[in-house]
């Protein structure tokens, strides 16, 4: 028996071109932790610059990590790394999905699955422990994700998990997803699977995941974790006054209160007071249906749902009989943008029929189910905003042929009838007509349809970067900290380290004190909507936020919850425990690793991402080619100045200083923001430095 713990020890390499499989040694990648780390290393080593997302030379890596499947709290994420078709350079990105897929990978004995080449005909990948085969998918091709999952699961032992693409991925729509467990989707890479003719992965595992530590030590850490954990997004105060709480915050996701129920459960489940010491009510803290849809959703709420080994349960599941009117199942599940994005496509508002908020809920529920079955992504809700701009500016009328324009059910849109979405998502999925170009992603749409400066420069359209992605907890979240974070990736930043703190609901002095203890000074964080000029601690905070995000995507842990920066406990002065990742890692792998040592591994992974971006963009000038922010960030609130209470309008010079300070923190060239040879070597990326040097892509 292998002595490897934490990790399963094996990586599955699948060559679709010749239908062969290879088991490789995970520990080759142990310096990259797992998940995202393995993904980026494989991309660096094996995918040449200039490769496009849908080329057979591209690879797609499904990654689990040493904590996945151990039952470590919130260790249920699957990281997927590949090239991103919606990015102008098809640069590398990671997408993630929750659910149970990566846990099942570990139980089958695999830390990662590398898929390369292209199958000559549609296949699905079947994995039962170490039994691997490619199965005929010809009867699945053209089917939605739900039916595909049922079919694949039906061909496998009970308990199998299935990751699949829908017709959108098959058709290589840029904005397409890979989905598991019905509502957990990874955005942007569906088309990569489609381009390779692989429809789904079905996996069943019956093996254990071992840890190095004694079970009692592990369970002690589990106890600590459950003591400090909050609600969804690690919000640690309730949204209404509760007897156990000193504080409360209207927008906190700790929405439980006596009388707020899962109304469609039988019998209805009362969320109740949810004292933070009560282990049996952690999953009741967030009534996400009401949070996402308003009070009207309470009666339709069957229960909450979510990922493997996570007690938070941040997906809502709804039973809405009216959905059948649209040819859909009455049962729908999702969370956050999975609902709000389809809602955002109804650019002229929602039906006022029925109870208050019912029309809006119907739009979101109809759209969510359609998107989840077709497997359509949204570029973090940008598809709706692109549609809005194109329509309101008159561009759509210009670029669509008359016949196509007339065929679009504009009357439904005007009425707020979600029947519109049935038509819209079909067009996007099957690339019907010019409208479907919206599925290419903001950069390509804006280019093809010649969007004006007003698209990029108006805050209404949320565009963060000329590379075609919107903001995601940016300047409005800790000013320069959020802004820096948002500029660092090749798509919308999926980092919640910083926003979990600012949204935690705690008074600002406590937040500042806590982050001060982590970063080195409370100056790392400003009061909401009242920010101050840049300082080095903000750069450190941005770095720490991203590093933890990368670590979580490699371990795999949920960054929508981790790190445990704060806790709901008055007796702890609301302090959490930021060493829990390294404690879990040490215990699982048997490699004693301090908090700082693990953070260094995160730094390595993130710098590798930067190196990949430099390589794929063919330039070291990240400051001017990759990192710039759209103008509106500097021009909103025209009557106000930056650094005054009431605005998160940024200052150009201050942001340039922010970038400089951030580059310095990362050990990147302060002028260009490209990784330096010295830093790459310090981080154990000597081979990366060598290749960049050969390509002339090291900063001077």
């Amino acid at each position, binding site marked *: 028996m292998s002595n490897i713990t934490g990790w399963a020890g094996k990586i599955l390499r699948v060559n679709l071109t010749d239908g062969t499989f290879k088991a490789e040694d995970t520990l080759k990648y142990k310096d990259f932790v797992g998940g995202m780390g393995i993904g980026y290393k494989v991309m660096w080593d094996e995918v040449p610059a200039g490769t496009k997302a849908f080329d057979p030379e591209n690879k797609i890596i499904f990654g689990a990590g040493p904590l996945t499947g151990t039952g470590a709290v919130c260790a249920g994420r699957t990281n997927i790394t590949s090239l991103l078709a919606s990015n102008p350079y098809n640069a590398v990105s990671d997408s993630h999905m929750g659910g*149970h897929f990566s846990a099942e990978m570990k139980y089958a004995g695999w830390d990662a699955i590398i898929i390369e080449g292209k199958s000559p005909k549609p296949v699905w990948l079947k994995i039962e422990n170490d039994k691997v085969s490619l199965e005929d998918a010809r009867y699945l091709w053209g089917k939605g994700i739900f039916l595909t999952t*049922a079919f694949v699961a*039906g061909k496998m032992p009970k*308990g199998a998990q299935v990751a699949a693409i829908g017709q959108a991925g098959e058709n290589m729509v840029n904005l397409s997803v890979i989905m598991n467990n019905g509502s957990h989707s990874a955005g942007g890479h569906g088309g990569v699977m489609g381009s390779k003719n692989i429809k789904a992965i079905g996996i069943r595992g019956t093996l254990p*995941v*071992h840890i190095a530590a004694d079970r009692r030590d592990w369970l002690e850490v589990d106890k600590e974790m459950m003591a400090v954990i909050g609600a969804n997004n690690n919000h640690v105060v309730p949204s209404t006054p509760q007897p156990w709480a000193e504080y409360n915050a209207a927008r906190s996701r700790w929405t439980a209160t006596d009388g707020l129920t899962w109304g469609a459960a039988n019998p209805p489940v009362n969320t109740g007071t949810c004292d933070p010491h009560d282990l049996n009510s952690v999953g009741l803290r967030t009534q996400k249906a009401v949070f996402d849809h308003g009070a009207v959703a309470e009666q339709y709420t069957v*229960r909450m749902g979510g990922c*493997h080994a996570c007690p938070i*349960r941040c997906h809502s599941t709804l039973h809405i009989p009216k959905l059948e009117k649209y040819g859909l199942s009455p049962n729908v599940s999702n969370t956050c943008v999975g609902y709000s994005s389809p809602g955002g496509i109804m650019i002229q508002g929602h039906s006022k029929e029925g109870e208050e908020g019912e029309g809006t809920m119907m739009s979101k529920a109809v759209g969510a189910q359609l998107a989840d079955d077709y497997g359509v992504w949204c570029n973090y809700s940008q598809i709706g905003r692109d549609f809005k701009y194109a329509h309101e500016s008159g561009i759509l009328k210009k670029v669509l042929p008359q016949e196509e324009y007339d065929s679009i059910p504009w009357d439904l849109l005007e009425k707020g009838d979600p029947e519109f979405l049935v038509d819209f998502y079909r067009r996007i999925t099957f690339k019907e007509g010019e409208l479907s170009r919206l599925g290419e992603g903001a950069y390509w749409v804006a280019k093809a349809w010649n969007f004006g400066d007003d698209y990029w420069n108006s805050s209404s359209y949320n565009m963060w970067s000329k590379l075609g992605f919107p903001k995601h907890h940016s300047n409005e979240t800790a000013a320069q900290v959020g802004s820096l974070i948002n500029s660092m990736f090749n798509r919308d930043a999926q980092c919640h380290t910083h926003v979990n703190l600012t949204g935690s609901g705690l008074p600002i002095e406590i937040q500042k004190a806590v982050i001060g203890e982590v970063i080195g000074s409370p100056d790392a964080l400003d009061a909401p909507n009242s920010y101050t000029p840049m300082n080095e601690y903000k750069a450190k905070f941005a770095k720490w936020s991203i590093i933890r995000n990368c670590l979580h995507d490699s371990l795999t842990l949920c960054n929508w919850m981790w790190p445990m920066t704060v806790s709901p406990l008055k007796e702890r002065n609301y302090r959490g425990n930021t060493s829990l990742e390294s404690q879990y890692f040490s215990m699982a792998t048997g490699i004693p690793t301090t908090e700082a040592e693990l953070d260094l591994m995160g730094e390595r992974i993130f710098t590798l991402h930067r190196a990949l971006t430099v390589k794929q963009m063919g330039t070291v000038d990240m400051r001017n080619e990759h990192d710039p922010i759209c103008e509106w960030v500097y021009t909103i609130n025209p009557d106000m100045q930056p650094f005054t209470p009431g605005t998160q309008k940024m200052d150009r010079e201050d942001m340039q200083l922010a970038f400089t300070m951030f580059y310095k923190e990362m050990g990147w060239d302060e002028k260009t923001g490209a990784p330096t040879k010295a830093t790459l070597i310090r981080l154990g990326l000597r081979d990366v430095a060598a290749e960049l040097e050969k390509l002339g892509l090291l900063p001077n």
Partner: protein
Amino acid sequence: MSQDEKKGLLEKTSTRREFLKIGCKSIAGAAVSMTVLGFLGYSNAADVTGFPLSTGLLISDASRCTGCRRCETICTMFNDGKTDPYIARVKVGRNYNFGRDNITAAYRTNDGVFGNFMVAADTCKQCKEPACAAACPVGAIEAQEKTGTRVVNESKCVGCGACAAACPWAVITVDGETKKSKKCVLCYQCVKNCPTGSLKLIPWQEVKAAVRRHA
């Protein structure tokens, strides 16, 4: 016990399988139905033969189970020092996507995450006349003296799997690594750690009270 008596028990149990599957769905909250109690051998509370009764009945309330599978991971970490849902003594992962039964065309409205979202854990029923114990050729499944909990005596267990084949609930499994049978010992870790309070231990007193109410 003679071979004939054992066989009789097994046959009795296997004809129960269909009923028990229906019985599964009726377990919710403390109001355990007469039908279910009957199948477990508790139709007459006074009629105690063979094994003494255990402390109570571990159930999973389907109205509250959200399929997080924390019960599975805690169970095996606590009892086996590893994470191994396959041998977890409470099993929910296998019901997660499509419910307990085989996938049908009505999967969008049947149990499971792809349907009506009903998920519940399968728990050891601490049966009055445990089929696992009856099937065991070496008598490795015993009732604990004080609590009546049915447990596997690992020093006797030979890992043959007869118990796993006999259990109508399929909650007892042989550990592929240790070759020992693993079954619920009512350690309560799953109950303590269930984040929604779906897993509950119904003490025998309350089960008996339910019998009296329905009688």
